[in-house]
């Protein structure tokens, strides 16, 4: 069993690489999406997730090996967050989004166990075909629903 056997959700939003990041984030929030594919034509070239947007606001010293593991002592540091967000919002979506990789997209022929593994860490994820074309979105809910349905059938 692979993702091909699942009914995928149609992607509600396709972002463009040259779209301003702020515009993309606003569109995602309006559509209630945590994650959206960035497409060049039909091909997925990157994935923008709100988790990544937030993680980019964390000071780099807390994101690298041997860095700070706790920032509670630094207070709200709104000054730093504002500065970091301001810098990020000047970027285009294509630059700010994470390039396509095994962590942020699923291939349509992905075995179901691997899909469970990846979606348990981040959900939803875009599903791509052999040429990188967008096939739809897969979420934890899609997968759990499919697995329960299978149980009921047996």
């Amino acid at each position, binding site marked *: 069993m692979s993702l091909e056997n699942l009914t995928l959700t149609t992607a509600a939003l396709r972002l463009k690489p040259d779209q301003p990041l702020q515009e993309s984030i606003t569109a995602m929030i309006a559509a209630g999406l945590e994650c959206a594919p960035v497409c060049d034509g039909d091909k997925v070239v990157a994935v923008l997730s709100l988790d990544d947007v937030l993680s980019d606001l964390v000071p780099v010293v*807390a994101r*690298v090996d041997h860095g700070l593991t706790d920032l509670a002592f630094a207070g709200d*540091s709104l000054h730093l967050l504002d500065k970091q967000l301001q810098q990020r919002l000047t970027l285009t979506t294509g630059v700010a989004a994470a390039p396509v990789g095994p962590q942020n997209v699923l291939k349509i022929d992905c075995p179901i166990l691997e899909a469970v593994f990846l979606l348990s860490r981040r959900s939803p994820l875009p599903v791509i075909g052999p040429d990188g074309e967008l096939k739809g979105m897969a979420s934890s809910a899609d997968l759990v629903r499919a697995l329960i349905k299978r149980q009921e059938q047996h």
Partner: protein
Amino acid sequence: MHGVANQLTGAPNVLFGMDPLVVSLAIFVITYAVIVTERLNRAIVAMLGAGFMIFSGVLDQHAAFQAVDLNTISLLTGMMVIVAIAQKSGLFQYVAIVAAKAVKADPWRITLMLAVVTAVFSALLDNVTAVLLIAPVAILITNELDQKPYPYLFSIILASNIGGTATLIGDPPNIMIGSAADLTFMDFIANTAPVAVVVFVVTMVPIYFMWGRSMRASEESRAQVMAFNEREAITDMRLLKQSLFIIALTVFGFVAPAPFNHEPGTVAMFTASIFLLLRAFGRPMEDQSHETHRAFSEVEWVTIFFFVGLFIVVAGIERAGVLEIVAEEIITLTGGDLTLVALLILWASAVLSTIVDNIPFVATMIPVINNLGSTFSPDEIMTLWWSLSLGACLGGNGSLVGASANLVVAGFAERAGHRIGFVQFMLLAFPLMLVSIVISTAYVYLRYL
């Protein structure tokens, strides 16, 4: 290394009847050359070199094992275990934040305070740990203050090597020298600490004129740093209290009078064991195993095995008589003049420690100085130990590759998006290192010669 020269007697039985001097020297040169290229992990190279010394017949296994200075190995391992446990308490970040707030978040004074804190931690712990704990806090503070982190990191690097010079346990060369020459913690406090303090003060002056006097931060950003809550940095109050108790107990062990005085290796291993016991006490067996396993896994085994390999490689050339010849050459070259020998050791160790890791150099120089014992009195030999210590420790400030702490800060800074260039660092660090050696020269000359 201590007493190895006396134990490794008897002619080596080298493979195919080859000359032990040639074989041991070839193994030594190749081992050190590969270490210098930094193309292979240094522990692998040192252990292979040690293996070749034994397989070629220069040393037998018994002699090789005797060559490993267990006092040095125990001291390093014990301190690494203590640091591995204590660093989780947040103690070091706590002190750094308190220091920054104590000077009202003034950028230059923060630079100075973080340098002082690093120097003190480096004197009591190993340099790499000290800089690894302080550098992330320093970068966060510079982010808040809208400052370039480079001057802060530069000062931290130099302070760690200067602070390490001050004590027996501050820098690996001192650990090796202390063990080889039977020097105590207080011997180093009395002999290297005073010059380390002077070098620290003199080093910070050009840093002030270079960057400090033009450092400005807005009231708003300084208020952000002042809003840091140092208490939040403490992740485990019980662990913090235990850490302070163990560090105090360890330092007491180093300075304790008879009948409590023991070799530093014994003290460090014993207090590390007490620390492990405190962490395990009253906990379920599974938690005890997890905590103990974690503490041991954070020991830098690469460094430990590097030392083991080096001790054996150096014992090989020592047994073949190479270091005796070197000692004789030094006497010939200097005419047996103590002043010239001391200054030669001081300057050569400083310059070489700038270019290569100071640990292999010191490991080689220890038996050379021991061999000079036939020419100089014990008091005069003591001058040579202090010259070696000052040269090797302070020489580490000359370039980014001069000491492990330098590379660790540079690596961390690069990951955090603030690259420290090799040449950029050396342009100021090398002259400052030379100044520190000039100060050391004056100190050695005036105090011992």
